[in-house]
């Protein structure tokens, strides 16, 4: 069995995330089954689109509890884009919906009043705040990553913020604690940077280096 399981809950960018793992020659499985997601060494939670629908699908597959339990046990869990936004406890999207609550924090819409275009679309810089797990030890910073989102995570405890990015405001673009990490930009569309970051995460948590 593969060490890496990509969760398929109908949440969107699964194909491009899978493509990234293929191109890195990393074996993975795509799974919807709660038991398989619970037992995997590393779980990747991709996603794009609406948070309400995503939470609904996770719940109906019994995956919400599995993911919360993994996080509580500090077992590797990587959220990408919407997968990161699902990790905090509240989103303002569509009138407001609870998330998985793995980290305290909320998801709010970028305000055009800041003089910015919404969605935040394109290549923006990751500024390193702290890197306790050494993901960026081989990556020159700041580095450009590809973003495509109208909502952003905010109100996250400073000790959880790995990188910030400036777009009208400074927002947490990568958050994490131990083996649980959420990435707002799309590593699968971020060229070499994305590949290096995913490799570093897997090296840390699959190879245990």
């Amino acid at each position, binding site marked *: 069995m593969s060490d890496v399981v990509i969760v398929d809950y109908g949440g*969107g*960018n699964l*194909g*491009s995330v899978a*493509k990234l793992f293929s*191109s890195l020659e990393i074996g993975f499985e795509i799974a919807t089954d709660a038991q398989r997601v619970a037992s995997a060494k590393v779980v990747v939670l991709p996603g*794009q*689109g*609406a948070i309400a629908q995503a939470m609904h699908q996770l719940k109906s597959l019994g995956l919400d509890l599995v993911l919360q339990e993994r996080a509580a046990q500090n077992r590797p869990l990587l959220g990408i884009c919407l997968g990161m936004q699902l990790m905090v406890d509240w989103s303002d999207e569509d009138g407001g919906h609870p998330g998985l609550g793995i980290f305290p924090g909320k998801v709010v819409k970028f305000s*055009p009043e800041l003089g910015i*275009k*919404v*969605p*935040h*679309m*394109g*290549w*923006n*810089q990751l500024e390193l705040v702290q890197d306790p797990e050494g993901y960026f030890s081989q990556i020159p910073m700041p580095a*450009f990553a*590809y973003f*495509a*989102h*109208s909502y952003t995570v905010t109100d996250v405890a400073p000790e959880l913020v790995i990188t910030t990015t*400036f*777009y009208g405001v400074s927002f947490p673009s990568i958050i994490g604690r131990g083996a649980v990490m959420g990435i707002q930009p*799309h590593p*699968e*569309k*971020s*060229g*070499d940077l*994305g*590949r290096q970051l995913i490799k570093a995460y897997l090296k840390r948590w699959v190879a245990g280096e």
Partner: protein
Amino acid sequence: MLAKRIIPCLDVTGGRVVKGTNFVELRDAGDPVELAHLYDQAGADELVFLDITATSDARNILLDLIERTAHCVHVPFTVGGGIKSRSDIRDILNAGADKISLNSAAIRNPSLLQECSAYFGAQCIIVAIDAKAVDHASQTHPTEILAAIQAQGITSDLALDSNSHWEVVINGGRLRTGIDTLKWAKWVSDHGAGEILLNSMDKDGTKSGYDLPLTRGVSQVSECPVIASGGAGTLGHIAEALNVCEAALLASLLHFRELSIEEIKAYCMSQGLIMRL
């Protein structure tokens, strides 16, 4: 800080990249997969494929092409041309594209934009707008397409008026719509477009510079990012466009190696723009 984007555009027909002036006199510009790979390596920030035949025949050729291209590019990849339905979009995203671009279909069926944006997310829906200067002196404005949209009752007033400068055209520029470009841009931006790909039909293929007043006007009324297209001939043209919008689309200048992505980015940075190297 957010970087400005350089986006090579591959106009594809019959499995080949072509380029012409004002959508006619097409010249062969190479193999799409090969070019996509080349541009990915050369530092393109994204890629756009426009299927300019878009007949049902060509659909499978296109999906196969998307799949092969997706394997060799590691930046976002947009496909447009002939997309008419949610299932078309699903097929194209499944084949490996990251975004789709709607053009005529959004005009003929504006609810498709709202529906697809809600379903797939605004971040993967680009609305392409082909704009042409209005000649107030000599024209009566067509009303048929406009009337058909307004009859659906979901859009605001889109009609050209005495203040209009640019009209939306469709079918490769052959068909006028009677729709004001700025009104349409604002409506799509407010109703699900994640980006606007704005092409000046007057400037396309002329190498005389992007239509800056048009680009600035659309950017001012749209909440979403704007990609300028049509008219690039020099480094200066590209930098001046990027001062009024978020991204520049480039075709023949790159395909025929008149400029490289590297020199474009270096020049834009020397002009104080933020670029990803």
